């Protein structure tokens, strides 16, 4: 026992069982994770990390009040050293995170990795996806240019149509009947306080469950080889993180973020549209009567949230027919079609 005196001093005062802490590093992962699907699970976490760091930097200069919000974004983008880069990284990491989460969900869906006993892992994963959409919605509104202001107005208006609790939800988000200075303050609070807290809790729950159950093996994969989490898997994740950062920095340098027109509550721009990831629900709500749209959207989200049990029910109904996979694939194709339709219109 010839440990370094400093280490001995520290171990005496902070008696952490280091051997216990090292155990997760030695976790053995199924060999299929070496394949293409490996990056889908870790990527959203890496992108979330990028957003936490860049988001903290942005809060140093962003001013969440209607008079100064747009000006502070302008200052960050045009005047601050590397402000344009930080803003671009934050914005585009968010967009990539939604894509990465969606692809990860498709992978889990197709391989049916959500089945018993991993149902709650899926539920927390869905919660992460919804929270990420919440980040997108609140973050977009903070720019406070004309389009984001009106997207916020229209988006929150929809909540007012939700049966029974719509009025309360509208007030909760807006801080009053209309989009006002209270709204921006609340969206800022949600974006940097409420949502990150919920996100960290959901990520922790998701990762703890993944660790407790172990990574699901692929159906029909008879290979029993494994590889170590450390250093092989960690090195892969590091390479992915570097590729993502590299891509984001190169993109930001080639196409630095621009600025729209400052928000003007008295002027409605001709083409109000939400960000692309809300295109499917936006198009759907334009296609059907409002109440039908709201109920079906809520039903779709609820169905996705509790999909492991829905799928199990369908399996009991028609054993071996994989009704769930067919139904899910049809739902995915329909969502994609709505997105493309709205994008092209």
């Amino acid at each position: 026992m010839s440990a370094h005196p400093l280490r001995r001093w520290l171990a005496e005062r902070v008696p952490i069982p280091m051997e216990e802490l090292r155990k997760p590093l030695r976790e053995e992962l199924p060999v299929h994770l070496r394949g293409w699907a490996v990056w889908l699970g870790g990527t959203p976490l890496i992108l979330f990390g990028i957003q936490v760091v860049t988001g903290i930097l942005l809060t140093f200069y962003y001013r969440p009040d209607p008079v100064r919000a747009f000006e502070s974004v302008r200052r960050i983008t045009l005047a601050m050293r590397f402000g344009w880069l930080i803003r671009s990284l934050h914005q585009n990491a968010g967009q990539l995170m939604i894509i990465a989460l969606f692809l990860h969900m498709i992978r889990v869906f197709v391989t049916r990795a959500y089945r018993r006993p991993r149902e709650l892992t899926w539920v927390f994963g869905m919660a992460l996806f919804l929270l990420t959409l919440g980040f997108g919605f609140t973050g977009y509104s903070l720019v406070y240019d004309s389009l984001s202001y009106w997207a916020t107005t229209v988006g929150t208006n929809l909540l007012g149509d939700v049966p029974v609790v719509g009025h309360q939800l509208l007030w909760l988000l807006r801080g009053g009947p209309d989009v006002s200075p209270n709204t921006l303050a609340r969206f800022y609070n949600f974006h940097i306080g409420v949502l990150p807290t919920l996100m960290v809790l959901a990520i922790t729950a998701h990762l703890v469950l993944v660790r407790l159950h172990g990574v699901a093996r692929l159906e029909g994969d008879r290979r029993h080889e494994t590889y170590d989490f450390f250093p092989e898997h960690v090195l892969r994740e590091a390479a992915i993180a570097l590729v993502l950062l590299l891509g984001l920095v190169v993109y930001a340098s080639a196409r630095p973020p621009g600025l729209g027109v400052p928000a003007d509550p008295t002027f409605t721009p001709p083409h109000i549209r939400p960000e692309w990831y809300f295109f499917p629900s936006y198009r759907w709500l334009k296609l059907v009567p409002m109440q039908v749209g709201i109920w079906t959207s809520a039903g779709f989200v609820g169905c996705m949230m509790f999909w492991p049990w829905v799928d199990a029910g369908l399996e009991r109904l028609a054993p071996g027919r994989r009704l769930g996979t067919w139904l899910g694939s049809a739902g995915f194709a329909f969502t994609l079609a709505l997105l493309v339709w709205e994008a092209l219109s």
Partner: protein
Amino acid sequence: MSVTAQKLVVALLSLALVAALVAAGSVDARRQAEARKHAEAMLDDAAQPQIARGRAVYTKYSCNACHAAGGTGGIMNLNAESGGKVNGLLHLSESYRPAELAEKIRNGVPTVGKGDPTGPDPPLHMPPYRDLIAGQEMRDLVAYLMSLRPPPGEAKSSAW
């Protein structure tokens, strides 16, 4: 892929990221220079409101369409004596008094001199602005044009 190869990949990617950040540094330097220039223009405008108004008049009547933003010139005007281009306006204060310049704007330049006497007439000429710009707008525009200066070290222009 072996662990050693993966370490090599991570090291190479780290170097590439550093290179990308250095390149981003040059983008940042360029944007900073533009921002400083913009801030200086804003300060000038605040200090000299008449020049700021004159700049607005210059844009309002599309003077910038031929003489370019900031009066730097450079729009092609085939066989014009000013080098086949519309002349710049950066030396007006050396050649004109304000009243003379206002008169020139009112009358326009109906005939542009040829670079090559045997060549074609230059297609562009300046129309008279007598019926369009007058009073305070003319005073503001002249003040703005007289404030234009070439960058340090540039030789005096032969025209305008």
